[in-house]
């Protein structure tokens, strides 16, 4: 198993925001983490990356426990992170933002299908024209593409993507969805946090549904389809 989270507990001050969270992502698999806002979806990704220190639990990446490691150590093991609100560098150009994604400057020379600047531009043609302009001047959709492209430049084996379609116009939502589809095809595993059910169901093989701080459902897309009660209770209005 590529990435395994076992019984993770995280606190914000006194608030027990993650209670015994467990999930797994295998090689080249796309897994979606669903649930309404404030359930701890983003906190799960932040705890994995180490931006938030989990208080207890294990984080096995290729069998090695990286729980509690500083973010740069966790990420260098082979994890890519596309944060909520994208957090691209406003004062840097698109080109510089992408270069920031390169891990420690030693691109995997040996790896034939390593991500290069051109390959990212293939996937995100819009970025090619805007490569000289500063991050702050990009539209929401372009910033989202840049954030994904930036993390790909580090040749991750698993990509943690946090609410990629949030705040995007409906048309763009489907464009971002297609991009993630292409990236899936290149063999990169994806752990997707998404509140838009349709997008998630169309990308993921397996789905976790969260209720407050805990897991409410775990299974394949088909199994979730067969459980309208889960959708009703935890996802819909």
């Amino acid at each position, binding site marked *: 198993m590529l990435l395994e989270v076992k019984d993770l507990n995280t606190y914000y001050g006194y608030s027990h925001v993650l209670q015994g969270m467990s999930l797994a992502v295998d090689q080249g698999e796309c897994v979606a983490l669903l649930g309404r806002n404030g359930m701890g979806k983003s906190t799960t990704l932040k705890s994995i*990356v*180490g*931006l938030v220190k989990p208080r207890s639990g294990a984080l096995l990446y290729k069998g090695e426990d990286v729980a509690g490691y*500083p*973010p*740069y150590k966790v*990420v*260098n093991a082979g994890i890519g*992170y596309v*944060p909520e609100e994208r*957090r691209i*560098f*406003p*004062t*840097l150009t698109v080109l*510089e933002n992408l*270069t*920031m*994604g390169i*891990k*420690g*400057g030693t691109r995997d020379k040996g790896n034939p299908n390593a991500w290069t600047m051109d390959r990212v531009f293939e996937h995100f043609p819009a970025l090619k024209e805007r490569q000289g302009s500063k991050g702050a001047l990009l539209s929401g959709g372009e910033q989202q593409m840049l954030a994904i492209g*930036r*993390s790909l430049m*580090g040749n991750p084996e698993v990509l943690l993507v946090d609410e990629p379609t949030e705040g995007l116009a409906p048309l763009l939502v489907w464009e971002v969805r297609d991009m993630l589809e292409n990236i899936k095809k290149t063999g990169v595993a994806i752990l997707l946090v998404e509140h838009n059910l349709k997008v998630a169901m169309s990308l993921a093989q397996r789905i976790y549904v969260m209720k407050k701080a805990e897991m409410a459902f775990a299974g394949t897309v088909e199994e979730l389809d067969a459980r309208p009660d889960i959708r009703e209770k935890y996802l819909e209005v």
Partner: protein
Amino acid sequence: MDATTAMYVAQGIHGLAYGMILFLVASGLTLIFGMMGILNIAHTAFFMLSAYFCYQVVVWTGSFWLALLVAPIATALVGVLVERFLLRKIHALGLLYELTLTVGVMFVIMEAVKVFWGTENLPLLVPPLLQGLVDIGGMEYPLYRLFIIGLSFLILGFLAFILYKTRLGMIVRAAVADPDMVNALGINVPFLFMFVFGVGTWLAGVAGVAIAPILTVFPGLADQMGMDAFIVVIVGGFGSLGGAFMVAVISGLLSSYGVQFVSQLAPVLMFMFMAVVLAIKPTGFFGERE
């Protein structure tokens, strides 16, 4: 060039020389503030420490050039130690405690210097190569001051080159905007903070060596330069190198021309300029931090 214009030009170059040294100190201060949010109160103490290191190297080896190389590096080393073993440990407590710690570090450096080197002015000779005057369009001007201007431009050009043309500079600029995100891209941000703190201290070190032959080496160096450097950073806009450069040059010219014409008001000119700027825009000319 007749006498009056020569006098103007001389004063101008004087001001520029002082302005450039001021900017060397202020650029280190701005870099550290921009990156880590700390206004290092001990910064000018490092500046003075470097002058003393320079004096000691010259006493041992008699070579100003060796001192110019060694002293700033030694000062940067002290800076790195302060960051690594003191500042980093109390980082979680927040700005108030970091600032207070740097006040403590300033006291210790200011006094330790007196213990080792006493309190009188230690003379430092301009190296033979740079002694004497140079003729510019019929006006005699000390070569050493031109050297300082040249050296400062060289270093600042080098600094600008690194910051805007190299990958390291790009990472520094990114970390100023969002250190957590840089951390989450696989870059060891704590080490980067230590490195930038070292570079900032090194810049103050170079300025210390440059000023030593002109003002001689004495404990008061820190206070005198301290006031002006902080004003340059505050008025220039926290964390903005461009702003600091402009204000440093203005400050240098103001102080040299001020002494010439309005000697009574000269030192106060700078504060007036500052009070006006801050009253209009509390974050300084280019400031965007607050």
